[in-house]
Structures are given as C-alpha cells and as structure tokens.
C-alpha cells in the first residue's frame, strides 16, 4: 500500500499525478479521432510545430501557451489547405509544415542561445515541475475538450466515418475539421509540458489503438480510450517515481506495455477461435462456416464442395483489404452441410465461438 500512498506525501508528485491523469484523459479522447482519421502522424507533427510557436512566443515576449496554440492551429489549417487540392498528400504536408515550424523554433533558440529549462521540459516532458497554473490550464483544456466532444459527437463521428456523406446530409465539414484542429492544438499545448513533444504522438495514439482492439463500437471505444489514457497516466507516474525515470517516457512505456498485452490477448483469442473452427473429428477435419442471412451476397464463394468437409471457405470478397473474419460469420440456408447437420448435430447456422475484436 505504501507503494501507492508514499509518493502522495509530496506535492510535486500529487500535481504531477493529477496532470498525468488529466493529460491521459485528454489524449485518450482526442486520440480516438486521430486514430480513426488515420492521422496518427499529425499529433507528432503538430507537437513539433507548437514547440516552434512556443519559442517564437518566448522571443517576442508572448505567453508560452499562446505562442504554441497559435502555431499549432495555424499549422493544422495550413496542412488542411495544402492537401485540399488532392495533389499533395497529408503525410507530405505534415512533414513539411510541422518540421518547418519546429526548425524555426530550433533556429531561434540557436540564434538567441537561450535554451531554458522550460523548453527542455517541452521537448522531453517535466511532469514533476508542474505548477498550479499549469494544472489549471490542463484542467481547463480537458473540460473544454470533453464538453466539445460531447456536443460535437455526432458531427465528428459522421464526418470521420464518411466526410462526403456528412456534407451531403447537411454538416459543415470544413467547420468541424477546423473545430477539431483547434481542439487538437489545445490538447497538444496542454500536454506538451507533461509528456513532452517527443513523446506526445504515442500518448495520443496508444489509448485509442488499445481501445480499438477491444471493441467494435464507437461509443465504447471513446470510453475505453479515455479510461486507458487516464490509467496509463497514473500508472506511468507511479512507475516514474518508483523507478526514477523521466515521467513522459514512463507514461509512454506503460502505455506500450498495455498495448502489447492487449495485442497478445487478441492474438491468443484468434488462435483459439481458429482451432475451434478448424478442429478434427477423428479422420475428418472440418471448419465451421459462418451464418448468412437470407440476403447474403458478399460475393462469397458459395460453390463449396462439401464432400470432403475440409473446406476453408475461400472468400473472394469485394473488400478483401479489410476482411479478416475473426468472427463467426453465419452461413445460411443456401448451404448444404448434410454431414455436419446429421452426423455432428451442429447445424450450419450458428457458431458461437467468441468474437475477437479488432482489425
């Protein structure tokens, strides 16, 4: 128990813990949209761009956070603008815009030779130096972001899943994109001093990726990602204290560990399910089919020859790139499995092996 309570005697740890939990929640919420939009690299890029803005703000005597926020937002808008024509892809635009802002920050630092402690904290994270005002900023950003995500839930969900259709159905997708870029910039500057620019991408992506591996439901993914983010922050902080490691690194390492555990669990489940589906009955090897409803038309190959009972259901699937069918996929009336039905007593329709979520 001391392991949990002892660090609490120190104010720096309490502040750090609160900050880490809130940043974890923040990154968990925002990360869902980053991962689902295929923008994982943008968190990394915008964090670097914000760093450039923070230095710029310092040189011109503007608040650290204001400089970082403005640059992060401007960088996000520039990336959007550059990619709009379709000729330049997002990864190239992110690489150019955000690195240019980061380079500007580095150039200014080298020019003015004032590499202060706060910039080192921004680069590598210094959660133990979190002040009360830092805590207030992180709490404010977390509350604003969570409120915005609740209010924009439908807009963000629809425009992330199918942006063209969202526009046709009446959503102002440009405005939604802008609002999301603003929230992302806020999240990045609030998290920068805690996990550091160099670690931020992982803090944004890991909770959402773990959540995606655990559920196929968007709402649940959002909740799981938020919980994983918060818990990772807290656990990472304790690890940082007990193992005397940099806090940003320990948060990311703990998150990576959670990712590996969930990945292993999914992999084991998939193997077990595969064995259940392709098991042997004496000499006869067979696999369980998957249900098809009355209107099954996946362009599945339904010309199976079931005489040998070792069919593996080749699916010439129109969406081959995403189909890995770890789930029971009921076959329907069209299928003729007399041997299965009669000899083994399990009909063609229902296979109740557990579903393994994830891609």
């Amino acid at each position, binding site marked *: 128990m001391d392991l949990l309570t002892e660090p609490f005697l120190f104010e720096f740890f309490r502040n750090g813990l609160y900050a880490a939990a809130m940043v974890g929640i923040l990154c968990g919420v925002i990360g869902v949209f980053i991962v689902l939009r295929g923008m994982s690299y943008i968190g990394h890029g915008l964090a670097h761009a914000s760093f450039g803005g923070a230095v710029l703000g310092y040189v011109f005597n503007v608040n650290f956070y204001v400089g970082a926020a403005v640059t992060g937002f401007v960088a996000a808008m520039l990336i959007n603008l550059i990619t709009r024509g379709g000729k330049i892809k997002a990864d190239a635009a992110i690489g150019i815009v955000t690195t240019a802002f980061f380079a500007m920050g580095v150039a200014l630092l080298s020019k003015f030779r004032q590499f202060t402690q706060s910039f080192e904290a921004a680069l590598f994270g210094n959660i133990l130096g979190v002040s009360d005002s830092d805590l207030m900023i992180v709490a404010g950003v977390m509350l604003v972001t969570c409120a915005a995500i609740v209010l924009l839930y439908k807009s963000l*969900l629809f425009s992330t899943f199918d942006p063209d259709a969202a526009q046709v*159905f009446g959503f102002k997708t440009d405005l939604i994109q802008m609002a999301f870029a603003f929230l992302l910039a806020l999240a990045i500057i609030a998290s920068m001093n805690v996990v550091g620019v160099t670690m931020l991408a992982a803090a944004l992506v890991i909770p959402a990726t773990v959540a995606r591996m655990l559920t196929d439901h968007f709402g649940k993914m959002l909740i799981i990602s938020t919980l994983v983010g918060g818990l990772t922050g807290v656990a990472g902080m304790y690890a940082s204290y007990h193992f005397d490691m940099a806090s940003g690194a320990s948060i990311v390492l703990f998150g990576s560990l959670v990712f590996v555990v969930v990945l292993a669990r999914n992999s084991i489940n998939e193997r077990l399910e595969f064995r259940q589906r392709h098991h042997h009955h004496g000499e006869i090897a067979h696999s369980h089919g998957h249900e098809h409803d009355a209107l099954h*038309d*996946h362009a599945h190959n339904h010309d199976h020859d079931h005489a040998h009972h070792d069919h593996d259901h080749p699916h010439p699937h*129109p969406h081959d790139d995403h189909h890995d069918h770890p*789930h029971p996929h009921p076959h329907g009336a069209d299928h003729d499995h007399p041997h299965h039905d009669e000899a083994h007593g399990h009909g063609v329709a229902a296979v109740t092996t557990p579903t393994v979520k994830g891609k």
Partner: protein
Amino acid sequence: MPALIELTDVSAGYPNNPVFTHLSLVVEEGQFAGIIGPTGSGKTTLLKSILGTNVPHGGTVRVMGRPVRQLPPGSIGYVPQLETVDWTFPVTVEQVILMGLYIRRPWIPWASREEKRKVHVLADKLNIGETLHRHIRDVSGGQQQRAFLARALIADPKILVLDEPTAGVDIKTQHDVLHLLAHLNEDGITILLTTHDLNAVASHLPWVICFNKQIIAQGEPKDIFTKDVLERTYGGDIAIVEQDGLLLIAHSTPFHGHPKKKGKNGPVDRTLSF
C-alpha cells in the same frame, strides 16, 4: 414534370484540368435515371457537383429550384460506393442508419427513442432488422448496401443519389437492389445513380444518360442502347443482342494479356465479356 435537378453550363474538376465543361442536364421529378460511362468519364464528379461536395468552377447547379448548399438538410439521400467505405471503422449497422438523422439534433450525442424506433421500422422494411447490432463489416454485401440505403432514406429525402450501387455485389443482389430502388421510385422518390453495369441498366432502369465527359445520349434503354451510342460512350467494339425482349450488351475487345492460345475451335484472340 418540373425539373428537380438542373445543371446549366457547368464545368467541374480542376480549373486547369476540367473533367467536363459546359454541361447542361435536367432530371425531372419522379425520374429513375442511371448515368453510365467508362471509368474516368466524370460520372462521380457529376454526382458530386449535384450533391454539392464538389463545387463547379463554372455554371450553376440547382436542386429543387435552389443552389444545392441552400437546401434544407435531408433533402437529398446519398449512398456512396461501397468500395470507398472504411469497413474497419467501429460502427454498427444501427449507428450507420442513425447517421441519416444526426443533423436533426446535432448537439445531442444520443439517439432518441423515436429515432431508434424509426430505424427499426425502416430496417425491418429493408430486411436488415436482425443485423442492427452487428458491426457493419460483419454483414453481407447486400445487407451493407441496404444499411447505407436505409441511412439515405431515413430522413425522407425527395431525391436519392447512389454512386455505383451495383458494384461489388453479386447478380442476385444487383437485381434485388435495383428492384428495391424501382419500388422507392414508385413511391415518389426521384432516383439518380451511376453504374458500370449496362445489362442491369438495360433491364431495370427506365431512363439512361450515356456520359463520357459530355452527354452522349439520353433516353429509354431500348432507344439509346445502340451500337453507335455505346461505342461513342465507351470506345471499342460493342455488341448488342436482344433475347426474349431483353437487351444484352457485350464489350468485345482484342485480348492482349497473354500469347494467343488455341481453343477447341481454333485460336482464341478475342474476349467477350458480359
């Protein structure tokens, strides 16, 4: 019949590389029309111009008498190409259909009981009631198509626009989808779709627009599915066969893929594809 969709002198695509220029087209209320044309002919750009997701750089697009962006939300139902959908996205069939109602209460993150009831009624009508709680990836191609159709229909649109609704599904599903659309059209919905499937168009659609960067011809399939029109639309050699009152269209092209092989009846140097 009054014009429901009206394009006048429209140019679209990239300003320095337009996909089509000076295009004028009228779709009347109650029409069930299919746009056919080869890949790259500009069918999707034309649809996007009508939907307002692609802003033309010349001319005007008016839907129900006003610019498309000024239409009340839900006036147009849209079904995208299934190939463009991200099937790994964590949504259920029910969530996909509910998206069609999102704009009505955009700030409330949950669906009302009435909205859920409406989804269930429509899903039952489209024979996908039992799939509502399944992940969208885990249902068949026909059910996926119906889920997106339900999303398009749930807000009671006047116009239904579908991008390649017969692509990636088998012949039975193509038939079912086109029949369903015909019923919806009978109920008063104006339908405009794009397709590559000439035979499905010939047998199911009452009005066809042959398109290849311009309108080559439009009319009833029996009138415009002529060798001349189809060859001007697609290029190459087109054969048209009429059997039992049905038009069968075949694209007969030289086969360049492999060295000539000898078949039972001599050298095989052409393919006939339906």
